[in-house]
């Protein structure tokens, strides 16, 4: 074929010319692919992995619009449109759980998010390098414990008969409190355990950003007579703003994704009233009670809200600070 094209055939018609250049392009592409076949072959399993384990279930989410029956499959199950979304909002339990999820998301954003920023600034002020390293080693550590272990530790120290917290309350002459057996404490425990586990680790990125600040700025401020505290306020904090904005946007995208494990491990029948979130409900109602389509609708609703929040946040931050995710 190639030799035919290159043979001198006198005047070529336009069609011939197009087909010959197309042939050439195809053959040069295939030659290119053949030359780097090892690279392309190597990437195939990974691409298949993402297709099968990430894209297939994504498209499988259509069961939210069906009455999915596990024996009939996707094609055999009856289509019901938005019915599950309608039942969702007519359901008292769902509204209560949505309320829990939103409240916990809000507390996590307002209370837990700023902690690593403050902690990083405070750690940065420790002048004794050895001690600073020592502190860092300790505060990073809880991040690597599993949620099951953390719940075990917390349930232990907050228990009524053997827990050290209630013992301390006893020394102060207070009645013991059943922290994990009441609706009123569970949200505090969930947010508190999150801060305990992750705020130390969260300082890493801010400490790196602080280390990247131009030291000339501090020198100039010193010459101008600004004290250390003034320097923190006028140099360190503003320099961290871009990092804070990006992380804030990412955090907002996960507003409703507090995480299944960190909540589930603390739940018991006495505190689900305030502690149950959408993810734990999806597990219980979906996997354990087999309400497949209904809980998929809830999951889909959650993803859409997350996406909308991140887009709104992005527009807002582009307008106000000029920082954006995309």
């Amino acid at each position: 074929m190639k030799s035919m094209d290159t043979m001198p055939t006198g005047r070529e018609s336009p069609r011939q010319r197009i087909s010959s250049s197309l042939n050439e392009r195809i053959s040069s592409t295939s030659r290119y692919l053949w030359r780097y076949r090892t690279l392309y072959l190597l990437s195939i399993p990974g691409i298949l992995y993402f297709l099968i384990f990430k894209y297939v279930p994504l498209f499988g989410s259509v069961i939210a619009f069906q009455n999915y029956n596990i024996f009939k499959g996707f094609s055999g199950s009856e289509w019901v449109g938005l019915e599950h979304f309608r039942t969702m909002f007519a359901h008292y339990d769902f509204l209560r759980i949505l309320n829990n999820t939103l409240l916990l998301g809000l507390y996590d954003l307002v209370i837990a998010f700023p902690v690593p920023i403050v902690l990083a600034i405070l750690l940065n002020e420790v002048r004794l390098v050895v001690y600073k390293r020592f502190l860092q080693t300790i505060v990073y550590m809880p991040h690597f414990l599993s949620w099951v272990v953390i719940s075990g530790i917390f349930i232990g120290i907050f228990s009524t008969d053997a827990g050290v917290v209630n013992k301390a309350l006893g020394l102060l002459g207070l009645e013991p409190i059943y922290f994990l057996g009441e609706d009123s404490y569970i949200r505090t425990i969930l947010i508190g355990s999150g801060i305990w586990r992750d705020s130390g680790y969260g300082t890493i990125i801010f400490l790196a950003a602080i280390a990247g600040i131009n030291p000339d700025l501090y020198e100039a401020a010193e010459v101008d007579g600004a004290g250390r505290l003034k320097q923190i306020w006028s140099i360190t904090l503003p320099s961290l703003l871009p990092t804070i904005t990006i992380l804030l946007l990412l955090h907002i995208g996960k507003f409703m994704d507090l995480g299944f494990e960190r909540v589930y491990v603390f739940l018991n029948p006495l505190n689900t009233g305030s502690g149950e979130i959408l993810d734990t409900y999806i597990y219980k109602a979906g996997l354990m009670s087999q309400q497949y389509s209904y809980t998929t609708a809830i999951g889909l609703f959650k993803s859409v809200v997350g996406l909308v929040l991140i887009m709104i946040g992005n527009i807002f931050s582009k307008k106000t600070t000029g920082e954006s995710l995309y």
Partner: protein
Amino acid sequence: MRLPSVRYRIFNVVNLIFLSLLSLTMILPFVNVLAQSLSSSEAIMNGEVSFWPVAFTWINYEYVFGDFSFWRAFAVSVGVTLVGTFVNLVATASLAYPISRTEYKGRGFIVMFVLITVVFSAPLIPNFILMRELHLVNNPLVLIVPGAINAFNFFVMRSFFAQLPTELIDAARIDGCGELGIIGRIILPLSKPVMASLGIFYAVSHWNSYSTALYYLNDSAWWPIQVMLKKLFESDEISVDSGSSMYSSLAHTSPEGIKMATIIIATLPIIIIYPFLQRHFVKGIMVGSVKS
């Protein structure tokens, strides 16, 4: 240089005290667990144990080490961590390396393809249906295969490979190396640091993973240590195999003490590798934060 102001010196002292107290709140709960795991049941139940063992005993540990269901879960976790981490590294590198090479046309498309899965993730049930169709429910492979590539780690590895000098690759090619030779002789020896960092991250997440086994494994024979530990917390029995309960015959052990001893044992591997871990995670986060 000016001397720091009085206000700053006060701030410094308060800051040091505050940070020291804070780090105590990170350590003390753990010390409390350790002390309880080494105490007798009477002492624990009477609330006598705070940060030092009371009526010191090894019996809680003896009980845990004598429990078959503990060893079984421990073995599952060790196996999944070792095999799983190996699979993770091979799978992640085999996609990240080709995508990092400029010769790979269409790599922008693949990057988007992966990025989309980070932004849009499927709800639980479609995942469950997929696992059922693939016969991964009640199959221990579910702890390894569905999580083979973590998108974030994929991006970290890709940027690591991308910053390796292309001159090395060109030189190897001139010397007659094929693509596989380049990978084996040039790329792999150079990528030890990124393999170590990501390997240790993958290993920790395997060891700590709980929900995957909870969702997809009903058979207690394949429960990893975290699931076993959670079941232990939920029950007042001392073993997840209800038949093997010997509680009444061991007057000095309490479920509380046994729970605490199991926590300590389940955390020990993490504590042991923590010094290595710490050396790597700062670097890992930094590479990852370079906007991909």
